[in-house]
C-alpha cells in the first residue's frame, strides 16, 4: 500500500487535533436520553418548593408554618429559625460576603428565599407553599445604585451594621460593598490634562440573565448509616461545591460526593451555591430521605445569579491623529442585595482590567464601586470570563466614540492603535501580559471579505436619500479576551488555586478512560478532550471514554466557566497524555530491545529511527504495560496532571455587522454578521463553529432584547419567557465565520479557548452598528437592548 495513503488512514482513524469529529454527546441528547438533575429519581425521594418574598424590601414580623405543616403529604417546612441551630441560616458567598439561606427577619429583594416546604411530591409542595403565612412590614425600596449611595438611603443590609470594612477593603457607605482601583491614576490624569483630544461616554450594560434551558436544581441524599452525603446538582464547578458544602456542613469532603450529570446549559449561572441547594441538603439530613429541589423558569430568571448591571463612564485621551494616550474608567456596579459574584478572590471586578483591549494604550486607570440594591444577587459572568464582556464593551464603544469625534473611520482608528505583532508579549498598563496576538491581518481579512468600502458607499448613498425607509449601520469590533483563569499566583476561589486536572488510565486492550476536573455543559468535552489525547498519546479518540462531573471519581478541578476548560484542563489533558506517551516509549523500547532515544513517535505507534519496519503500536504497548514492562518499572499505564497555567490566554477576533433599521417602526434586521476568531490551535473546527454560532446568538439576544428591568417598588419585570428574549431560529441572523491561527506560546498545544469570544465580541459590534445607523445625526451611544421600541424612541428623539 502507498505509504501516504496508509498514514492518512491511520491519521483519520486517530481523530486527533484538527479533525471535525462528530460530537459524542449528541446521540443521547438528540434522542432524549440525556440525564439531567430532574431525571434523577431515588426511592423515597421528597420534593421541595421555596416560599419567596413578594416584596423587594421588608421586615418579617412572623412566619406561621402551622397550616402548611398540617397539609397532608407535607414532611417539613424550614425557616431561618430551623437553620439557626445548625448555623446554616446564612452562608458565605464566593465574593467574601454572606447571603441569607432563608430570610433572617428581613428580605432585601423580591423573590428572596423565606421558607422551604418539603412534601411527598411537587404538587403537594406547591399547594402547601401557599399556606405559609408571612407577616411582612414593607420598607422603602432602592433599585438604583446611585440612589443607594445617597446619605439617607435605606439600609439594604442591616446585618452589616457597623462593618466599615468588607472583603475588599473599606466601605464608604452602608450600601457600599467595595472600591477597587487599578492603574496609575496620576500618570493617567496627567495624560488627560496634556491631551489634544478627549472624549467621554456614559453607558449602562443592562441586567441580563443567562437563562439556561435547564434551570438550577439539586437532589440531596444523606445516608445516615454510612454518614455519606451525595448531591446531584446542575453545577459548572462540582468540586468547588463539594468544598463549600464541606465548609458549611462540617462533613469531611471524603464523605461528600457531588455529581453534575448532563447540564442543560450554564453560561455562568451555575457556578455558585444557591439557598435551595443548602436547604435540600439540610432537609435530607433532617428527614433521612432524598430531597429534590428544582427551580421554575421564573425562579431561575429572578433569583439565581444575574449578569452585568454595570454603569460605566469611559474617557479616552488622544492626539489629533487618533493615537490613544490614556483610558480612564469609573464603574458603579450594581450587585443586588448580596455580593454573590463569582470572581477570583483578589479581583472583585473580575478581569475588567482587560479593558485596554487590543490597543497600545500607555496609561490607564480603573475604579469600580460595588453597590447593594434591592435586587436579586449576582453579577456573575454570562458566557464570558469574569467581567470581560463589560470591559470589552467599554473599550470598543470608546474607540468608536473617539473615531466619531475625530472623523476617522472606525476601522482606520483601530489600525492606528493596535498592539503590533512584534510587541508581544505585551504588558498592558493595567498589569496583564498579553501572550500573543496578530490583530491587523485579522481585521484586514474581514474588511476584504465584506468589501467594506462598498458598504460605506452604500451607506453614504442611503444617508443622502431622505426618502429611504431604512437606516444602515456598520459595526466593527476588534476585541481581545482574557480567558483560562488562571495562574494560582493571581487567581483563587476560596483559597484554592485555579488549576485544573486530568487523569488518564489506559486499559490492557489499548482503550482508555480519562477524567477531568471540568464539566461540559454543551462544549463537547467528551469529543474534544479525546482528540487531544489521541494526538498526544496515539490512542484513537474512539477508544477513549471521557468522564467528568463526579467528585468521587474525577480529580479535583475548578470547573468549566470563563473559557477555562481548554486553556487549563486541556493543557492538563495534553500533559497527562504526554506522560502516557513517555512511559509507552520506555515500554516500546523494552519490547523492541532498543534505547528509548532510538524511537520516534509516529501517530499511533513508536518506530525505530532508521528502521521504520520495526514498530510497536500503542495497542501492543498497552497490553505489555500489564505483563511485560522493563525491570524496575511499575505496571500499568496511567497518568495524572494538575496544571497551574503560567498565564491567561488571549483569544481575539475581528467582527463586522451590517444592519438596517426601519425608521418608522424601529425594527432591525441584521443583514450581515462576519465573525473572524483566532483561538490559537483549533481542536475541532466543527465544534468551534457551533460554539461561535451559539455565542453570536446569545450576543444577539443580549444586544437586541434581553433585559430584566425593575419598577420603583422593586418588582422585577419581564421574569418569564413571555418577555425575556430567547431568540429562536426565526429571529437569529445568518452567521458568517472565519479564522486566523495565532497559537498561545505558553499552552502545551497552543490552544486558547473559544466559546465566549463570540459573545464578548459580538455585543459591542451590534452596538457599534446600531449607533452607526444614527451616527450622521450626532448619536455617539445609546443603551441596549435595541428592541424596536427603544430604537423607535431613539429615532423619534432625533426627529426621524
Amino acid at each position, binding site marked *: 500500500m502507498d505509504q501516504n495513503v496508509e498514514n492518512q488512514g491511520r491519521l483519520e482513524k486517530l481523530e486527533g487535533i484538527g479533525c471535525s469529529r462528530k460530537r459524542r454527546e449528541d446521540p443521547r441528547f438528540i434522542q432524549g436520553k440525556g440525564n439531567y438533575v430532574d431525571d434523577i429519581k431515588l426511592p423515597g425521594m421528597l420534593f421541595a418548593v421555596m416560599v419567596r418574598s413578594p416584596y423587594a424590601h421588608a421586615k418579617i414580623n412572623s412566619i406561621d408554618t402551622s397550616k402548611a405543616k398540617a397539609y397532608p403529604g407535607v414532611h417539613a417546612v424550614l425557616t431561618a429559625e430551623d437553620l439557626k441551630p445548625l448555623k446554616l441560616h446564612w452562608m458565605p458567598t464566593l465574593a467574601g460576603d454572606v447571603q441569607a439561606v432563608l430570610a433572617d427577619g428581613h428580605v432585601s429583594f423580591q423573590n428572596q428565599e423565606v421558607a422551604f416546604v418539603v412534601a411527598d411530591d*411537587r*404538587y403537594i409542595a*406547591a*399547594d402547601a407553599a*401557599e399556606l405559609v403565612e408571612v407577616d411582612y412590614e414593607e420598607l422603602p425600596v432602592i433599585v438604583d445604585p446611585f440612589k443607594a449611595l445617597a446619605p439617607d438611603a435605606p439600609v439594604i443590609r442591616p446585618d452589616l451594621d457597623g462593618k466599615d470594612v468588607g472583603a475588599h477593603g473599606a466601605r464608604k457607605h452602608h450600601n457600599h460593598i467595595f472600591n477597587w482601583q487599578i492603574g496609575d491614576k496620576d500618570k493617567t490624569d496627567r495624560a488627560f490634562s496634556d491631551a489634544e483630544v478627549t472624549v467621554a461616554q456614559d453607558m449602562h450594560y443592562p441586567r441580563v440573565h443567562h437563562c439556561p434551558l435547564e434551570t438550577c436544581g439539586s437532589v440531596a441524599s444523606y445516608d445516615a448509616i454510612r454518614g455519606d452525603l451525595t448531591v446531584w446538582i446542575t453545577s459548572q464547578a462540582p468540586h468547588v461545591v463539594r468544598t463549600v458544602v464541606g465548609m458549611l456542613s462540617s462533613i469531611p469532603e471524603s464523605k461528600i460526593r457531588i455529581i453534575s450529570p448532563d447540564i442543560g446549559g450554564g453560561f455562568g449561572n451555575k457556578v455558585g451555591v444557591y439557598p435551595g441547594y443548602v436547604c435540600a441538603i439540610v432537609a435530607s439530613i433532617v428527614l433521612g430521605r432524598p430531597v429534590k429541589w428544582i427551580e*421554575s*423558569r*421564573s425562579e431561575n430568571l429572578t433569583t439565581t445569579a444575574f449578569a452585568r448591571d454595570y454603569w460605566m463612564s469611559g474617557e479616552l485621551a488622544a492626539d489629533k491623529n487618533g493615537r490613544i494616550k490614556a483610558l480612564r474608567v469609573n464603574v458603579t456596579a450594581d450587585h443586588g442585595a448580596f455580593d454573590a459574584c463569582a470572581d477570583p478572590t483578589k479581583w472583585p471586578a473580575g478581569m475588567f482590567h482587560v479593558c485596554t483591549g487590543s490597543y497600545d494604550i500607555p496609561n490607564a486607570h480603573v475604579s469600580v464601586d460595588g453597590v447593594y440594591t434591592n435586587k436579586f444577587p449576582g453579577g456573575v459572568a454570562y458566557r464570558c470570563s469574569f467581567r470581560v464582556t463589560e470591559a470589552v464593551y467599554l473599550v470598543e464603544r470608546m474607540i468608536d466614540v473617539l473615531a466619531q469625534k475625530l472623523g476617522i473611520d472606525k476601522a482606520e482608528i483601530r489600525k492606528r492603535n493596535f498592539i503590533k505583532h512584534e510587541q508581544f508579549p505585551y504588558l498592558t498598563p493595567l498589569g496583564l501580559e498579553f501572550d500573543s496576538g496578530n490583530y491587523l491581518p485579522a481585521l484586514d481579512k474581514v474588511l476584504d471579505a465584506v468589501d467594506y468600502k462598498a458598504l460605506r458607499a452604500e451607506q453614504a448613498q442611503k444617508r443622502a436619500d431622505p426618502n429611504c425607509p431604512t437606516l444602515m449601520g456598520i459595526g466593527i469590533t476588534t476585541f481581545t479576551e482574557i480567558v483560562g483563569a488562571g495562574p494560582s499566583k493571581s487567581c483563587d476561589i476560596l483559597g484554592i488555586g485555579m488549576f485544573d486536572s486530568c487523569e488518564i488510565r489506559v486499559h490492557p486492550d489499548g482503550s482508555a478512560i480519562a477524567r477531568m476536573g471540568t464539566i461540559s455543559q454543551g462544549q463537547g468535552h467528551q469529543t474534544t478532550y479525546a482528540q487531544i489525547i489521541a494526538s498526544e498519546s496515539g490512542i484513537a479518540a474512539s477508544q477513549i471514554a471521557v468522564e467528568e462531573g463526579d467528585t468521587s471519581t474525577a480529580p479535583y478541578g475548578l470547573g468549566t466557566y470563563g473559557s477555562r476548560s481548554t486553556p487549563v484542563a486541556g493543557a492538563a489533558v495534553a500533559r497527562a497524555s504526554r506522560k502516557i506517551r513517555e512511559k509507552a516509549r520506555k515500554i516500546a523500547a523494552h519490547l523492541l530491545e532498543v534505547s528509548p532515544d532510538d524511537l520516534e513517535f509516529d501517530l499511533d505507534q513508536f518506530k525505530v529511527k532508521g528502521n521504520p519496519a520495526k514498530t510497536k503500536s500503542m495497542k501492543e504497548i498497552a497490553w505489555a504495560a500489564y505483563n511485560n514492562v522493563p525491570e524496575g518499572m511499575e505496571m500499568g499505564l496511567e497518568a495524572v496532571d494538575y496544571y497551574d497555567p503560567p498565564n491567561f490566554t488571549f483569544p481575539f477576533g475581528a467582527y463586522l455587522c451590517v444592519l438596517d433599521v426601519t425608521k*418608522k*417602526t424601529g*425594527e432591525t434586521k441584521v443583514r450581515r454578521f462576519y465573525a473572524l476568531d483566532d483561538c490559537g490551535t483549533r481542536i475541532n473546527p466543527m465544534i468551534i463553529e457551533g460554539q461561535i454560532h451559539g455565542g453570536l446568538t446569545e450576543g444577539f439576544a443580549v444586544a437586541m*432584547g434581553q433585559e430584566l*428591568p425593575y419598577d420603583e417598588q422593586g418588582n422585577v*419585570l*419581564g421574569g418569564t*419567557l*413571555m*418577555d425575556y*428574549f*430567547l*431568540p*429562536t431560529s*426565526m*429571529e437569529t441572523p445568518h452567521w458568517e465565520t472565519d479564522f486566523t491561527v495565532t497559537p498561545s506560546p505558553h499552552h502545551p498545544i497552543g490552544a486558547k479557548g473559544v466559546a465566549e469570544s463570540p459573545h464578548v465580541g459580538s455585543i459591542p459590534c451590534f452596538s457599534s452598528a446600531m449607533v452607526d445607523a444614527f451616527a450622521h445625526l450626532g448619536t455617539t451611544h445609546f443603551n441596549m437592548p435595541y*428592541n*424596536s*421600541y427603544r430604537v*423607535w*424612541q431613539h429615532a423619534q428623539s432625533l426627529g426621524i
Partner: protein
Amino acid sequence: MIPRPFEYHAPTALPEVIALLGQYGDEAKLLAGGHSLLPMMKLRFAGPGHLIDLRKVAELKGIALVGGEIHIGAMTTENELIFSTLLAKHLPLLAEVARQIADPQVRYKGTLGGDISHGDPGNDHPAVMMAMDATFVLAGAHGERLVKASEFFHGLYDTALTPGEVMTQIRLPLPPAGTGSSYAKLKRKTGDYATAAAAAVVQVKNSVCVQARIALTNVGPTALLAGDAAASLVGKTIDEAAIGHAAALAMKICDPTPDLRGDEAYKTAMAGQMVERALRTAAARCAI
C-alpha cells in the same frame, strides 16, 4: 408552575358539555387548546375546580362550505386552518393570521374558538373575525344563538358568552370578487403577542375601493373595529395618501396598555404602521 388541584372532565358530545357547565357553574372552565388557560392556572392566576376538556367533542371540529359561508368548528386548530385547502381557496387570510400565531407546537394545540372565546385583546383572531365580519354560534342549555364578531367582545376577558354557554362554530361569509385581505403583526419575537397588529379586508372595483373593514389587535381592552378608518377608503383609490389617512384615523381609536412592548405612543404609532402595511398588501391582492 404547578396549578391548584382540579377535577378533569372529558365529555364526548356537546349536550354533555352543556350539562357539565350547568352542573359546575362558576367553578368550571372550558379547556380548548389550553395555551391561554393552562399558563394562567400554572401561575395560579386562575384556579378552576373543574376543567371540561372539549378535545373529544367531534361536532366541534371541521371546516365546511355551507351555502355562501364557511363554517369552522370552534375546536379547529390553528394548524388545521393553515393546511386547509378550502380556506386557502376562499379565505386565505385565516391561514395568514394562523401562521403568525406563536410557533408550530402551539398551533398544533391552539384552536380558533379558544383564541376568540378567551376575550384576550392580545389574541390575533378577534380582530381578524371583526374584519371578516364573522358570526359566532353560541350554544347553551336553551339552544343556540348567533352573535356578530363586532358585538361579541365586551372588555378584557369579557365576551358575549353567558355562564353555561360554549362557542361551537365560527361562520364567515365568502368575500365578493375583487377582495383582498392581509394581517400585519409587529411582535418582539416568535411566540409573543402583538405589540400592535391590523387586519384589513378591502374590495376594489374599477380601481376604487367599494368596501373596507379594518380591525386592530392589542391596542385596547378588546380588538377594535376601525370603522372611520375603513369608511375613509370607500369611494377612493387605495393610494399612499388614502392609506396614510386611514392609518391616522385608526390610531385615533387606540387605547393601549403600556408594558414592556412599548408605551401608549409607540403602540399607537405601530397600530398605524400595521394598518398601512395591511392595507398596502390587501390592496395589492385585490385581483381583477
